[in-house]
């Protein structure tokens, strides 16, 4: 035990560290290419974005070393403290002057710090600690077993039963929405994956899939009209959806009547009816939310994604330029520093060094490069799942899933948005997008994971 304690790097997962370094270096080389300015060719020039990014990497590595010198127990013990600290930062940031309409930044003499990036670390630690402490595996197993069709829509009972969990997630969600920062809010919803893995709300994923389908259908047809077949009745799209839901419910009920034993039917009927009510309420919620809660630019982004509007040089400018940059990369790409669209001097793709950094990579490296990048991320995510599953410590496992979920969401939304599969939501691609806060927070997430994982054998004893 002692010998292992002394060797900080003894049980480091070199593969994870390796892929981290590969991503970081590719990311910096990509920023260098994307903002390359022949007048400032110096790699370490601090007036350039790549120079700053290297500086931030230095800071991140320094933080990583600090993390390595901490003990797992220390991290576990002070998880709530760190959570509390980041929540205070999130409150504090609300008293700053807005930049681009959002109060998301603390400015320190030209350097901007985004507390919401660090909040992800805080929430991950707090959630891991809470689940580790409070929820015995038996209880969760029971919940899992009950998670049949009968508790399909059990999200409300779930929240009421797990007020503390809801609070840990709800506070930062509310705070980032106040900034407002929809992107980080959506990233916080990634913890639902963790909850799923830990046995909460068994069918939450099925629930999400059905909810997404209903939401998309609602957004597509709710504001249109159609003629009821064989009649002259003019009906709204929403009525159509509700009619469809009634028909589907009826069909299910018929199926239940045909295939389920009589004594089991009653409960299923009840849950089916409950589901129907929830679905109808959800349809109304989506419609109301779309028309009354979303801001006009958010509505536009959704409409663009669903193909309801097509305006390549106006509202759809960003996404059109991004897709053109990626699509024009071809199989092998245009070559390093040879992007003609996603390049700082061409300025065709807006925010090409931050939110749309994937465009530069894809345009210059082509499909081969895109495939490599997606492959590296997939490897990273699966590696994290493997690491999580080999832990004996619940804390470390939950934490590992938190990290995996955060990376997964960032990857899915950032790349999905650039290739037109997700709405435009401004969140960074880890290690590729330019930005100090995200470089530090993602690095710290990884380093903490590396540290916790390296002590997995100690915990075992």
């Amino acid at each position, binding site marked *: 035990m002692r010998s292992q304690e002394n060797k900080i790097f003894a049980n480091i997962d070199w593969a994870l560290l390796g892929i981290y370094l590969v991503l970081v270096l590719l990311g910096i080389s990509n920023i260098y290419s994307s903002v390359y300015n022949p007048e400032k060719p110096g790699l370490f020039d601090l007036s350039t974005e790549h120079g700053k990014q290297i500086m931030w990497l230095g800071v991140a590595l320094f933080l990583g070393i600090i993390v390595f010198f901490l003990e797992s127990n220390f991290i576990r013990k002070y998880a709530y403290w760190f959570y509390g600290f980041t929540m205070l930062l999130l409150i504090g940031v609300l008293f700053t002057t807005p930049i681009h309409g959002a109060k998301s930044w603390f400015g320190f003499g030209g350097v901007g710090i985004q507390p919401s990036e660090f909040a992800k670390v805080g929430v991950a630690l707090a959630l891991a600690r809470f689940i580790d402490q409070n929820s015995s*595996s038996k209880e*969760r*197993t029971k919940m*899992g*077993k009950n998670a049949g069709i009968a508790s399909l829509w059990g999200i409300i009972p779930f929240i009421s039963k797990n007020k503390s969990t809801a609070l840990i997630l709800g506070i930062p969600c509310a705070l980032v929405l106040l900034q407002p920062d929809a992107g980080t809010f959506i990233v916080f919803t990634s913890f639902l*994956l963790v909850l*799923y*893995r*830990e*046995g909460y709300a068994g069918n939450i*994923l099925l629930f999400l899939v059905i909810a997404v389908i209903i939401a998309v259908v609602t957004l597509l047809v709710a504001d249109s009209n159609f003629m009821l077949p064989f009649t002259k009745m003019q009906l709204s799209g929403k009525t159509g959806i509700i009619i469809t839901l009634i028909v589907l419910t009826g069909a299910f009920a018929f199926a239940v009547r045909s295939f389920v034993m009589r004594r089991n039917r009653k409960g299923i009927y009840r849950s089916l009816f409950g589901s129907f009510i929830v679905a109808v309420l959800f349809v109304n919620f989506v419609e109301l939310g779309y028309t009354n809660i979303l801001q006009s630019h958010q509505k536009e982004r959704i409409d663009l994604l669903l193909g309801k509007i097509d305006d*390549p040089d106006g509202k759809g400018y960003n996404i*059109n*330029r991004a*897709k*053109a*940059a*990626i*699509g*024009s*990369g*071809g*199989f092998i790409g245009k070559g390093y520093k040879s992007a*003609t*669209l996603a390049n700082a*001097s*061409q*300025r*065709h793709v807006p925010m090409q060094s931050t939110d749309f950094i994937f465009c530069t990579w*894809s345009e210059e490296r*082509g*499909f081969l490069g*895109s*495939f490599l990048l*997606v*492959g590296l*991320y*997939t490897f990273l*995510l*699966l590696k994290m*799942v493997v690491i*999580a*599953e080999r832990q004996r410590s619940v804390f470390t496992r939950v934490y590992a*899933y938190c990290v*995996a979920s955060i990376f*997964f969401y960032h*990857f*899915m939304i950032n*790349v*999905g948005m650039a*290739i037109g*599969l997700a709405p435009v939501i401004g969140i960074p691609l880890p290690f590729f997008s330019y930005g100090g806060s995200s470089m530090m927070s993602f690095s710290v997430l990884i380093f903490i994971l590396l540290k916790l994982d390296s002590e997995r054998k100690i915990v075992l004893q």
Partner: protein
Amino acid sequence: MRNIDNRKYIIALIFVLIPLTFVVRLFYMQVVDDKWKDRAATISENKILTYPARGIVYDRNGEKIISNEVYYDIHVIPRQAKNTDSVAFIKLLGISMEEYSKKMAKAWAYSSKKPSEIVRQIPPNEFAQIAPELYKYPGFFEVARTLRVYPKKIAAHVLGYMNEASPNDIEKDPYYKPGDYIGRTGIERMYEKQLRGQRGVKYYLQDAIGMATGEYENGDYDTLAKQGKNITLSIDWELQEYGERLMQNKLGSIVAIEPSSGEILAMVSAPSYDPNLLVGRHLGANYGKLQEDTLLPLQNRSINSAYMPGSIFKTVMALIGMQEGVITANSSFPCNKALLGCHNHPTAQGVSDGVKMSCNPYFVQLTRRIVQQGKDPSIFKDAAIGLDIWAEYVRSFGIGVDLKTDFPTNVRGNVPDTDYYNERLNFRWAFSTIQSIAIGQGEVLITPMEMANLAAIIANRGYFYYPHFVKSIDGADIPDIYLSPNQTMVDSQYFEPVIDGMWRVVHESGGTARRARMDSIAVCGKTGTVENFKKISGKVYQLTDHSNFMAFAPRENPQIAISVFIENTGFGGTWSAPVASLMIEKYINRTIKDTVKENRILNANLIPDINDIIRE
């Protein structure tokens, strides 16, 4: 427990499925679908066309007769010009606010990032005042464009004009782009391909606001503009200018050819116009005005009009008669006025006399022998056989056939043959029906160009080169068709009596063209007087005859053959002959000795009032 642990597989599955979806999507976008590549090209690439200077045109003595001048269009890239002080700017450009707003709105509608034209063709002197101020108006810039300049305001019909390529031109030849200029008439049209050169193109990368940021693919796809070819014409610019001066206040034409080469020395059509009128911004308005002019200044009378040849045609009859053996040089015919009216003159004792006296009955009887050779007992069938022989002869003189002149025209004279009359007279015709063709009236038509060519044939004693304008193209040789002579069907030995007659027309008392006589040069000529019928509001009137003259000089080793045609001036010797002689003197001697003759012509206003020339 097992139940929950299985969820790791679900999560791993999600972590694989989403990236897999991305890979499929990326493969489709980057490799399969070309849509985004095209889109990227329209966004990030642009090209500028570089226009070559159009070829310069010189006359036979190396004088520049068409050159280029640089004009400036002002273009705008709308989104770079958002903060324009429009009040000051329109003052600088000298346009109205209304026009400016209209043009800007159009530019915005076309593209916010691509340039649109705001003002067109600012002359260099005006641009000199605009240029130093232009930098104050970002988004606006000048585009240089060369336009034609005609240093002397002459030969508009020969040189032709240019205007913007029509959708039809663009469809026919994809070289042209909207806004390009294309030669529309004359030499500009005939040698368009040589003169225009080859446009160059330069591809470049542009940024989001359309500013160039670098060259595309290291300029591998760029091409340099190729300067148009310079052309030397056979026109004698001094002679052309003199001819136009002589033809001031007259309607008609002059065509002068060098017999030994077929080179056209001058081609005048009166009235003419200043070729600079049909250049640049005011082309449309000026063209409209010229088009409305009742004297038809846009009509090129020297090549695009066919008239009855009148008496000059008699020379051809005499030549055919001798070649066919139906007469000899000494054949005499009585001046039988019962056949056709004539003036009083002694009996013509041979071809030379006949030509000199221009005796109508002489040539009617002569031509009857050609047409009615007695090869068939039926006079109708006989005339049909004979007329076709006759027509073949006439055509060998370049009348009514394609003279292959390098000038855009398809107007030709008319040589009536058997088919022609059968159709119109329903087979019931013999020579007596159509005898007026013998004296160049009736159905025979000739263009002034053909007439000058006829003079050249006689000067050459039996052959001609296709009349042409081109002398050399960028130093290279001209097409072969202009280098080999075309023989007529009449042998050279028969020409001397006709030439003798033509010499006497000018030099002997009783000749019809005494006004063409000069001491220094032996001119051979033949006058013509052409009856002129015109339909005015449904009624046919006979108007004052056209005056007509063809000549060549000197008699031996002729240097110039010429035709002069002046409308509504009566007898050919009165006006056309002196004009021809002045032209000949100018060309051969370069100066005019007989200033009285010259002044008489220069001061004459022969443009008729339509009411005065109707002969009752």
